[in-house]
């Protein structure tokens, strides 16, 4: 096996070399090959899902509830559940994450403590999401007796994405020019006034785009929600944060694991909806970040 890899590497090396001599830019070939490879995979998946799912995207699909008949099943509860979770994760992780980020970046003065917290937060970002699901089940669902509710799910997902928000906040604050902070201090501003009037407004778009990316991550998760008890059949429109719920990824999971193959069409269609939603959030995040860079540079 090793020998095969070695040969392969040598062949790639030789190809790059050859290309280098022909065109004077060997690495461009590697880059192009791998880029095309990745793009091809993503495009392939997208095409497959589109072809399978697109015909199902009709009014009935968006307004229907779960059903045993694939053609009559819809995503209304799942879609609304995802919107609920989206809004709640935003509302929970934004203030908590930003506050923690500000504190870590501007208030922790002991270097060793800051380092310790930083390592821990980085580690938290790497914990598998299902572990957060178990934490949520024990702490929010049972401990705080929130039940298998939208609120419990949103809190769990918020805990999961909190490290992302904290890191984004710290990075955005670090981008604030030191001269601005210094100027504010020199005028007699307190630390908080400096942060509130100058650092935060400058960092805000960066923070917001970080939060949006975190929300995107949260609404794509199925595993932790399965653990805390998202259900397959929600026969009503969720009306409060204490209601039972389902979300798009969970709905997709249930459909995809059904034996009848025509449910796969539903799963594909739901995937398209979820993709559109995440794409929308991502675009929003990118837009905000671009505007921010312009502002910092001007």
């Amino acid at each position, binding site marked *: 096996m090793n020998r095969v890899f070695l040969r392969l590497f040598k062949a790639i090396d030789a190809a790059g070399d050859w290309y280098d001599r022909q065109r004077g830019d060997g690495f461009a070939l590697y880059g192009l090959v791998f880029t095309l490879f990745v793009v091809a995979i993503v495009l392939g998946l997208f095409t497959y899902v589109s072809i399978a799912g697109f015909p199902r995207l009709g009014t009935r699909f968006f307004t229907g509830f779960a059903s045993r008949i694939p053609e009559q099943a819809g995503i209304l509860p799942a879609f609304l559940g995802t919107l609920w979770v989206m809004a709640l994760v935003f509302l929970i992780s934004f203030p908590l994450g930003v506050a923690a980020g500000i504190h870590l970046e501007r208030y922790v*003065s002991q270097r060793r403590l800051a380092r310790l917290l930083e390592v821990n937060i980085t580690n938290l970002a790497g914990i598998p999401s299902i572990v957060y699901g178990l934490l949520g089940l024990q702490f929010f669902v049972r401990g705080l007796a929130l039940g298998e509710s939208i609120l419990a799910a949103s809190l769990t997902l918020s805990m999961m994405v909190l490290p992302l928000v904290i890191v984004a906040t710290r990075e955005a604050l670090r981008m604030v*020019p030191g*001269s*601005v902070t*210094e*100027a*504010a*201090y*020199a*005028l*007699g*501003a*307190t630390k908080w*006034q400096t942060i509130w*009037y*100058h650092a935060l407004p*400058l960092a805000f778009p960066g923070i917001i785009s970080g939060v949006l990316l975190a929300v995107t991550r949260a609404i794509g998760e199925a595993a932790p929600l399965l653990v805390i008890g998202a259900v397959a059949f929600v026969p009503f429109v969720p009306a409060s944060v204490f209601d039972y719920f389902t979300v798009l990824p969970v709905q997709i999971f249930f459909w995809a694991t059904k034996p009848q193959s025509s449910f796969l069409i539903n799963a594909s269609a739901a995937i398209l909806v979820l993709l559109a939603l995440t794409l929308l959030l991502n675009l929003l995040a990118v837009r905000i970040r671009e505007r921010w860079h312009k*502002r*910092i540079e*001007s």
Partner: protein
Amino acid sequence: MFKIEVRDVHFWYGNSEVLHRIDLSMAPKTVTALIGPSGCGKSTLLRVLNRMNELIPGSRLSGEVFIDGRSIYTPDVDVYELRKRVGMVFQKPNPFPKSIYENVAFGLRIKGINHRSFIDEKVERTLRQVFLWEEVKDKLHKPALALSGGQQQRLCIARALAVEPSILLMDEPASSLDPISTAKLEELIYELKQTYTIVLVTHNMQQASRTSDRTAFLYKGNLIEYADTATFFTNPSSQSTQDYITGRFRTEG
């Protein structure tokens, strides 16, 4: 009575002592120039006067600094109030990335003043004080960063003045400006002297001799000479001052 008195001040960054036993006093409504080669401690000394040095972790001071006869390093001193009384202008113009108006208004806002017409009036008055009003009165709500370097620096002075300090610290305020902007700034310093006590760090000896009443020469953290500017430049008492101002200075090592 002196406006500022520095007594027996030593200052450390970590383990390296960057100011050794500095003693000097400044009379009210005068300009004092601090000169010396790079790294001599003149900027550090300047920042000792409004406690901006404290922002650097691991820094330490011994000795005492009095402003208006009151020590500024005792625990009961409110450092934020101190900095409102001792304004500062930096080497590189550093207006906030906000409008011209908001730059000047900030000092008032952090004092808790929100009265619109009061702020309007104060903005105009301070901008007039720095001879910037005529140039910017039609674009008060445009970004401050769109101004020229010289205008930005005068805006920074206006911003500092709006807080109503009695002392103004200037850290090489003209070092990034062209000759015309520099001339305007020096004129402004002369005007401001009628009201404020000014401490000016500069690399430019002509500037020191043109603008200041007294000049202090620092070298390697020591105060070598401190005298009336006229005396300082025509008849310095120390050989190294003589060497420095005539450009024959050698930094050994």
